[in-house]
């Protein structure tokens, strides 16, 4: 177990690209933190600096209040799971899992090592395939091997860089719950990089949203979802993207006369389709497209040339071209300053 403190961490690559800018982050003991952001936002670079694969330009990283910049990667006691597994295909599953124990040469007996490999194989569900060549496994099993290999050295900190993005959807969902269970059992500090906000929301205790090398917001999934700090976070999180409307379009929703220079942010789930003449309607629009998703429909509308998305129950599915009214719970409207993009 370990806590991580990142102190104004900056990484500038030769050529002037600043991948990470003045990042501050605290990862408490045994917590599960997701670094969330679009590709190129600096999350993987941050991970590489935590693991020591990359050296920061400035700033410092502390594990349990010890600065670790000068500690080589192999001595930081971190486990790293890569997006492309990076398993050693020339070895058996057994030797892959045992690799860390072998190279660290921690004075263990062979029997100890054997027992440990068995135990880890049990946890990740590979007991039956220990003698197989790792290169012949399915993609799903390869990621299990990668997970087991980084677990066996009992790392104080577990770093996972988009570990499930190559897996098929069903197995990804399964691994998500498995990982959460493993983290719970082992009580390790985990940092998880992903660009998939569903993954981050469903697994993490805390989410750090990054964009263009800078931390946008750091908070619990609920905070991130319900009280985004700025327009970027609001737009990035949420499976159907938040609607952004100029306040002038729906003055009834823009409180306290704040209509100039303000954009309203409304989650599609907070909107409701009503008849156009309904007194509850804040907006009128025409239906442009309906995406049936089974449990819900996503209705794309056009309100005075502004695109609006509404998530509705499939029971009352409107037709393309229908004129409808949009009702909204004023308590669920967010307001953003147009100048700074920050939440008001």
């Amino acid at each position: 177990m370990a806590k991580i403190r990142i102190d104004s961490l900056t990484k500038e690559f030769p050529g002037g690209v600043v991948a990470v800018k003045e990042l501050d982050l605290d990862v408490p003991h045994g917590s599960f933190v997701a670094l969330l952001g679009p590709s190129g936002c600096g999350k993987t670079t941050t991970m590489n600096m935590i693991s020591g694969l990359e050296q920061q330009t400035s700033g410092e990283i502390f594990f349990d209040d010890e600065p670790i910049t000068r500690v080589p990667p192999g001595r930081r006691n971190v486990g790293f799971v890569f997006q492309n597994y990076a398993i050693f295909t020339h070895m058996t599953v057994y030797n892959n899992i045992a690799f860390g124990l072998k190279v660290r040469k921690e004075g263990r007996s062979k029997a100890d090592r054997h027992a440990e490999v068995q135990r880890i194989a049990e946890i990740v569900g590979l007991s039956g395939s220990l003698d197989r060549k790792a290169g012949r496994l399915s993609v799903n099993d390869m990621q299990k091997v990668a997970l087991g290999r980084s677990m066996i050295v009992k790392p104080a900190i577990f770093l996972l860089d988009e570990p499930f993005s190559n897996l098929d959807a069903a197995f990804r969902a399964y691994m998500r719950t498995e990982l959460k269970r493993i983290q719970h059992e082992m009580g390790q500090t985990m940092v998880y990089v992903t660009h998939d906000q569903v993954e981050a929301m469903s697994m993490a205790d805390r989410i750090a949203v990054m964009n263009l090398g800078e931390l946008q917001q750091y908070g619990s999934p609920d905070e991130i979802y319900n009280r985004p700090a700025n327009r970027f976070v609001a737009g990035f999180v949420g499976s159907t993207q938040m609607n952004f409307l100029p306040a002038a379009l729906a003055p009834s929703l823009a409180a306290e006369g704040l209509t100039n220079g303000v954009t309203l942010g409304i989650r599609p789930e907070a909107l409701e389709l009503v008849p156009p003449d309904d007194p509850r309607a804040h907006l009128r629009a025409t239906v442009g497209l309906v995406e049936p998703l089974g449990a819900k429909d996503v209705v794309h509308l056009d309100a005075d040339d502004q695109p609006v998305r509404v998530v509705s129950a499939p029971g009352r599915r409107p037709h393309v071209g229908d004129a409808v009214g949009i009702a909204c719970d004023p308590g669920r409207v967010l307001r953003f300053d147009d100048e700074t993009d920050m939440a008001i």
Partner: protein
Amino acid sequence: MTEGRPWLTFLGKALVILTLGVLFLFPLYWILTMAFKPQDEWSPVGHVYWKPSQWTLDNFRQIFGTAKNTGFFTAAPTDATSSILHSVVAATGGTILAMLVGVFAAYGIARYRAGGSFLPFQILQLRMFPPIAIVIPLLIMYSYLHLVDTFWGLILIYGAVTFPFVVWLMRSFFQEVPREISEAAIVDGCSQWGAFFKAVLPQVRGGLAATALFVFILNWSDFLLALVLSGSNTETAPVFLNGLQSAGAGQEYGPQAALGLILIIPPAVFGLAIQRYLVRGLTFGAIKQ
């Protein structure tokens, strides 16, 4: 055109394969039969012996110094044994040298972009002129360095001449190994060297084998450099083979073919021994990009 006549397609394909097969295999067939032909069937005027009228081992006896009847018009018995051994030493040594230097250079270039984008091209420049252009200056240099007619001299030049091939071939193999393979090993506790030897190098076994074989064949079949730089102490087999001619017998095609046949064996054995590594197989397919 052959929608309804698949047998015609089949016939066409078979014909092409057969033609190519004959084209490629005929020289081998010719050298094989020539090696067992008696002297008067080597190249008689006005007659082609497609196969020896009588199979004989005389040509082999000739080049291993065990032939009995000698006369002015028969090939003089010689002994090729030492030249074959010389070739083995020089070609193997040169291959080891080129691989040792080239593999590390290739990894440095592939993983750490050592030397920038220009270095790989500069290395290839070593091969951009015909060897004949450097052979005389080399001879003069070597004579100052007392490297003429030494194994070290041959090994050095073979290593230098084939080094660019090793760098270019191995660089592309290393580039196919994801960076994460070495990074994973490093995070697990390996040093840079440990990661290279334990994690990366085994991933390119197939490439190593193919490159070594290719370079060995180049060194093994070299004639020009050896002709100029070797001497009585180090004469290699191709140079020896070239000497198989005499005033009385002219070109000694039979013994030449016999020696040629023997010279095929080492690369062939080497190739068969590493055949399973030559199939790159699953090694590279297993990492999803």
